[in-house]
């Protein structure tokens, strides 16, 4: 009934989002396991009405929450409770869309199905890296669907992944407070940074968990329980600490800025020196994910904040 639906909407959390390859649509996944597709062109156009801000299509994708989503040039990959599913972007807009395939990485424990918190595409190898509740990174070949490697090392579940393109290396940050670097070819842990051990950035009252990671090959920015910090990777030293009290849930490099979002309404734009350049307010009280629309067709950079209240906020244009 109406009350129930309103309550559901009030308690909806959007965990992940992904922009379509053409740049016109935005897919968002929520805690009920649904994926909703929005038309960015309609919602952001000057004649946008209330109706155009509603999803074009919504479907039940997973049984549990959809924690992460990523898009290839033809597929949308979504992952939540233990599985990763693939959907065709071309098919998604039609009603009754079915997944293309679903895969489950080999888990050790059977008591509880671990969640998949992060998906990472490695375009050179055409593989997908999954990481989540079972503290391992799994690499899956997108061509064959087989799981090639499992990288172990974290002592607690993994929150986020980042790709260092040049090497290629994968960075992972987890609940145990460490950022680990893995070499994909050798499948070994190369470097470990225990952020909480560094006094400048650690914030014990928040915990030691690393919620977000972003890397720019030489540099890495991470945040979460400890403060948002910019690290120089080779020397493993923190260079800049961003004065943000609230734990950040997502961070990304953009042009010469660092964008971060977390608890609090705003998307923060930081200079590399640590100064706050701008704060762009959103509609929901907390933000969990940001995504950049890289397509040249959209001149503005579209950043989608995600949390609660049913609408994934208004995509915020900042340029």
């Amino acid at each position, binding site marked *: 009934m109406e*009350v129930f639906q309103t309550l559901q909407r009030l308690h909806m*959390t959007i965990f992940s989002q992904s922009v379509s390859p053409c740049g016109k649509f935005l897919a968002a996944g929520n805690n009920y396991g649904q994926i909703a597709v929005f038309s960015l062109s309609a919602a952001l156009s000057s004649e946008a009405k209330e109706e155009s801000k509603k999803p074009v299509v919504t479907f039940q994708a997973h049984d549990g*929450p959809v924690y992460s989503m990523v898009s290839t040039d033809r597929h949308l990959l979504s992952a939540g409770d233990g599985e990763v599913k693939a959907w065709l972007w071309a098919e998604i807009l039609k009603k009754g869309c079915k997944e293309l395939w679903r895969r489950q990485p080999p888990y050790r424990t059977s008591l*509880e199905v671990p969640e998949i918190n992060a998906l990472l595409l490695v375009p050179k190898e055409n593989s997908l890296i999954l990481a989540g509740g079972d503290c391992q990174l799994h690499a899956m070949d997108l061509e064959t669907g087989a799981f090639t490697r499992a990288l172990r090392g974290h002592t607690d579940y993994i929150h986020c992944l980042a790709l260092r393109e040049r090497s290629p290396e994968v960075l992972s940050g987890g*609940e145990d407070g460490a950022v680990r670097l893995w070499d994909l070819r050798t499948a070994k842990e190369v470097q470990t940074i225990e952020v909480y051990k560094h006094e400048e950035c650690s914030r014990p009252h928040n915990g030691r968990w690393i919620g977000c990671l972003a890397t720019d090959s030489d540099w890495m920015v991470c945040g979460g329980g400890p403060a948002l910090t910019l690290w120089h990777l080779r020397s493993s030293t923190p260079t800049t600490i961003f004065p943000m009290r609230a734990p950040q849930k997502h961070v990304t490099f953009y042009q010469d800025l660092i964008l971060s979002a977390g608890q609090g309404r705003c998307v923060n734009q930081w200079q590399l020196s640590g100064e706050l350049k701008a704060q762009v307010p959103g509609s929901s009280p907390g933000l969990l994910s940001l995504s950049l629309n890289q397509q040249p067709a959209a001149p503005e950079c579209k950043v989608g904040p995600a949390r609660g209240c049913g609408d994934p906020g208004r995509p915020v244009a900042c340029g």
Partner: protein
Amino acid sequence: MVRRRQSICRRLWSFGDVASLVCCRDSVRTICPQNICSLRAHMEGKYYSEEAEVDLRDPGRDYELYKYTCQELQRLMAEIQDLKSRGGKDVAVEIEDRRIQSCVHFMTLKKLNRLAHIRLKKGRDQTHEAKQKVDAYHLQLQNLLYEVMHLQKEITKCLEFKSKHEEIDLVSLEEFYKEAPPDISKAEVTMGDPHQQTLARLDWELEQRKRLAEKYRECLSNKEKILKEIEVKKEYLSSLQPRLNSIMQASLPVQEYLFMPFDQAHKQYETARHLPPPLYVLFVQATAYGQACDKTLSVAIEGSVDEAKALFKPPEDSQDDESDSDAEEEQTTKRRRPTLGVQLDDKRKEMLKRHPLSVMLDLKCKDDSVLHLTFYYLMNLNIMTVKAKVTTATELITPISAGDLLSPDSVLSCLYPGDHGKKTPNPANQYQFDKVGILTLRDYVLDLGHPYLWVQKLGGLHFPKEQPQHTVIADHSLSASHMETTMKLLKTRVQSRLALHKQFASLEHGIVPVTSDCQYLFPAKVVSRLVKWVTIAHEDYMELHFTKDIVEAGLAGDTNLYYMALVERGTAKLQAAVVLNPGYSSIPPIFQLCLNWKGEKTNSNDDNIRAMESEVNVCYKELCGPRPSHQLLTNQLQRLCVLLDVYLETESHDDSVEGPKEFPQEKMCLRLFRGPSRMKPFKYNHPQGFFSHR
């Protein structure tokens, strides 16, 4: 005949009397024929000599003699005259001579005259005689003719005479011969002789008639007897009526004992005739429903029947009233305002007037509590209203927070979603209100009762939305289709309110009453305690800083009830603001949380608080418990306590602070945190007893 002869005689006498008188001066004339004979005899006695001569002389010659004599006389007279005129002496002798001759002539004339007279008389007599004869014959003829005629008449009469026997429809001949006994029918005689036959038939007829007359008398006497019997029985029956009445009276206690109140029902139907149509529809449908489906429903009619009858006065009376009030109005406009206000007040009262009769429905619930509904009909507004009252089997001690739960004003609010009963459902009433300055019915509902939409539907009144219609008639089918649903909803409502009532009493004492069949939802040990449970006002709820989401989503209207609960454990205090929808328990209560422990955490700054709210608000279906799910609120409160326990115990230890954790972890959890938002394990798994994530 004798008279005719007399008249003939008279006539003879009248014509011939002069001549006869002259001739027979001294004869006595009489009129009867006998007298004519006597006259003749007299004539024979005194007999003129001329009479004998008459027969001998010839009348012709006498006539000639007469003419001669007259001529001689004339001559003589002329000679005399001549002589007299000549004069002289011898004249006298000649004159004398002539005179003597003329005297002789005179004598002749006289004789002739007598002869003539006698002839005449004779002739007359003869004529008379002949005439008399003719007359006699004529008379005879006449008499005979008359007799003939008379006889002919008699004959025709006789011929025409219809004997009565011909009027009688006799049985046909065949039948007669068949049926009549031989001594009457006498076939051998009657066959040949029609007269005898007819006689026989008449005899038979007579016989039959006698028999039938006999039968008739018998039947009459039978009838008399039967009539008498009928009389007796009638008296008996009429004496029975008062006895039956007394038996009915005596049987009333038995009826009550056996729960078959026929008498009462009959009286009710009598009274129901005076109900206005919507109340009548309601009465009929409710009685029917009660008899067919639901024995716990009882229907009664209250109010004054006489007043109801008085309402049906002819319209002239009401017009008179109007004109009276107009006259009053004219008078009072000269006065000051207070009376105008009073007048308006009267008009308002008139507009809001209720029909004197009302229908009372009593719904008995399983636990012996009764919902009393009294339905009124507002005549001028054409809507029905209801007043509700809940009585329980045992006296209820009302906990402070439960004050509004069973109040008559709000117990039936929003029985159907959105039906708050503060506005009149009849759009036409707005125009009526404007006339008398009533803004809304809301001000009068306490007195008049609530005009809920379901009440109108039960009375068969269907008001189309937003379009005034002058005549809305009461429709039975509308009432019937809504009756069952509404009754069920009413019962559910009362029972859920009573359940809440009891629960509130317990909650106010800090005990969350969880029934045994809901224990499986919660772990055995719950440390957090409910310390406070109070009602708060709607405005206060809107002012709270952590309820903004609910208010913005439009879920906090003024028909809801608002409460504040406080759960504590150690130094942690959790405030929960509760919105209780009147449609509890089909519509779940909504909780908004604010935790005060190491800072203030609400759903805007702590995802786990949000998760806790979600556990209670969104996942309420697990907490409903067995039907009719009255345990929802208490289960939600208990879950809240469990969630607080989990939250506090799974809070990661702050390494920088010295000392042990305030709340050691006692709950069994597989993992403490999960997912990007680092959720705590709030889901309780039964019967293993561990906590996991959703």
